[in-house]
C-alpha cells in the first residue's frame, strides 16, 4: 500500500524530510534506462569513504524526488557534475556552513523541457521540473554524502535551498548564455552546479542609471558577514532580474559587470579584523590569500569567480546574490545532450 511504503521510506532515512515517491523497482528501472545507465553500473566513487555510487542509487533518488524520465537529459550530466572531486559532495552535506547543491540550467533545454525562469525563478516557482530536479540534487547530497550513514550534517543555520534549489536562465537574454562563462559554446544547453548559501534579494527601484543598481548589488555581495572573506575560495552568482538588466545593459557588458563587482565589493581589511571576521593566521587555507592589514579585501580572488545569470520576472526591480560555499571551489558545468 502506498502510504505504508511512504512511511517505510521515512523510517529508513530515505527522505529529505518531505514524503518521497517510493523507489519501486519498476519505477527505478524505467528511470535508470532513461538516464542511459546499465543495471549495476558504477557511476561514481567517493574514494575517501570507499563508496561506489551505482546507477540504481541515483535512479532511485530521481524517482523519490518526483522527477519524470523525460528529465533524464538533465539528470545525467547533473549527476556526473555532483561527483566531480572539486565539488566535494560530502563536504557540502556535512559542513557547518549549512549549504545546498545549487543547480543552474541554461540554453534551449530551458524551453524544450519547460523550466520556469520568470516569476519566483530563484525559488518557489511551483513548477515540477524546477522543484524536482533541484530536489534530486539535494537528495543525492543527503543520501550519498554521508559515507553510507556514518557522517552527520552539521549545518549551524542552513537554508531552504537544501530541499531544492534550481534556477533556470531566461530565454530573452541581454548577454550570452550563462554557460559561456564556463567555456561552453553559446549554442549548447547546459547544467551547472555550485554549492551555496541562501540567496540575498537586492531591491533598487529608483536608480535610473546602471551605477546605482550596481552599487547596491556590490554592497550585498560584499556584506561583512559573507563567509568568503575568510577563505576566499567560493564563487558567487549574481542573478540579474530583467528590469535591472534593461537598465544595466545600456552601459555595461557582462564582463564589465564581473569586473565591477570584483572591484566594488571590497571592504577595508582593518574593518574586517576589527569586527573579528578575519584574523591574520598560519591556517594554510587562509594563508593562501593572507590577511594583510592596511589593504582592501574582496570576498573572491578574481572577477571570473563571479558569475552573471539572467533570470526572474519583469514588474519590479529586483536582482539577487547567491554566495558560494568556500569548500566547493568551482562552478562545474556539463553540457546537456538530447
Amino acid at each position, binding site marked *: 500500500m502506498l502510504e505504508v511504503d511512504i512511511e517505510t521510506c521515512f523510517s529508513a532515512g530515505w527522505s529529505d524530510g518531505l514524503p518521497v515517491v517510493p523507489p519501486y523497482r*519498476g519505477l527505478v528501472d524505467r528511470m535508470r534506462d532513461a538516464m542511459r545507465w546499465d543495471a549495476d553500473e558504477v557511476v561514481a566513487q567517493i574514494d575517501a569513504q570507499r563508496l561506489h555510487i551505482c546507477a540504481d542509487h541515483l535512479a*532511485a533518488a530521481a524517482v523519490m524526488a518526483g522527477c519524470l524520465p523525460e528529465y533524464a537529459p538533465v539528470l545525467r550530466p547533473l549527476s556526473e557534475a555532483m561527483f566531480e572531486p572539486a565539488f566535494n559532495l560530502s563536504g557540502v552535506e556535512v559542513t557547518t556552513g549549512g549549504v545546498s547543491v545549487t543547480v543552474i540550467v541554461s540554453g534551449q533545454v530551458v524551453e524544450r523541457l519547460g523550466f520556469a525562469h520568470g516569476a519566483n525563478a530563484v525559488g518557489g516557482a511551483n513548477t515540477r521540473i524546477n522543484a524536482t530536479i533541484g530536489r534530486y540534487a539535494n537528495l543525492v547530497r543527503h543520501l550519498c554524502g554521508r559515507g553510507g550513514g556514518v557522517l552527520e550534517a552539521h549545518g549551524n543555520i542552513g537554508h531552504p535551498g537544501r530541499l531544492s534549489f534550481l534556477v533556470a536562465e531566461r530565454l530573452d537574454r541581454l548577454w550570452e548564455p550563462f554557460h559561456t562563462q564556463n567555456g561552453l559554446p553559446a549554442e549548447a544547453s547546459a547544467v551547472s552546479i555550485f554549492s551555496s548559501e541562501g540567496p540575498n534579494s537586492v531591491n533598487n527601484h529608483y536608480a535610473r542609471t546602471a551605477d546605482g543598481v550596481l552599487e547596491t548589488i556590490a554592497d550585498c555581495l560584499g556584506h561583512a558577514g559573507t563567509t568568503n572573506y575568510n577563505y576566499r575560495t567560493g564563487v558567487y552568482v549574481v542573478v540579474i532580474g530583467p528590469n535591472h538588466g534593461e537598465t544595466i545593459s545600456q552601459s555595461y557588458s557582462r564582463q564589465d559587470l564581473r569586473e565591477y563587482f570584483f572591484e566594488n565589493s571590497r571592504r577595508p581589511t582593518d574593518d574586517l579584523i576589527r569586527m573579528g571576521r578575519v584574523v591574520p593566521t598560519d591556517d594554510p*587555507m587562509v594563508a593562501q590569500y593572507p590577511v594583510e592589514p592596511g589593504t582592501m579585501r574582496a570576498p573572491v580572488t578574481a572577477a571570473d569567480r563571479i558569475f552573471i545569470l539572467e533570470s526572474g520576472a519583469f514588474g519590479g526591480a529586483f536582482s539577487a546574490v547567491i554566495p558560494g560555499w568556500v569548500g566547493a571551489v568551482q562552478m562545474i558545468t556539463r553540457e546537456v545532450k538530447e
Partner: protein
Amino acid sequence: MNSSEIDRTLVDPIPRPQVDRIAVKIKPQVPEVFLLDNRKPNSLAILEGARDELRRRGVKVHDEIFRKPNAAVAIEGALLGQLSQVRGLLLSGVND
C-alpha cells in the same frame, strides 16, 4: 505504465562503504589524554582551554596538541601513523 503491474520492491538509494573489517579499541591503554586540532576556527583555543581544565582536575594531558595540516583534508600519511600509535584517549572533533 499500469501502476498495478510494476514491481513494488523498494530499491535502497543509499550507497554503503566497502571496507575491510577493522578493530576498534574502546578502552585507553594508558591514562593520558591526547588532543587533536582539526584547524577549524577557534579549535586550538578550545583545546588549549580543555587541556588546562583537565590538568586542573588532575587528568594527565599530553603536552603536544596534534594539528591537522588543513581542516578540509582527511588525515593521512605521517600524522595518521602517529595517531595510530597513541595508547591513551585521543580527543578530536572540536568544531568552530
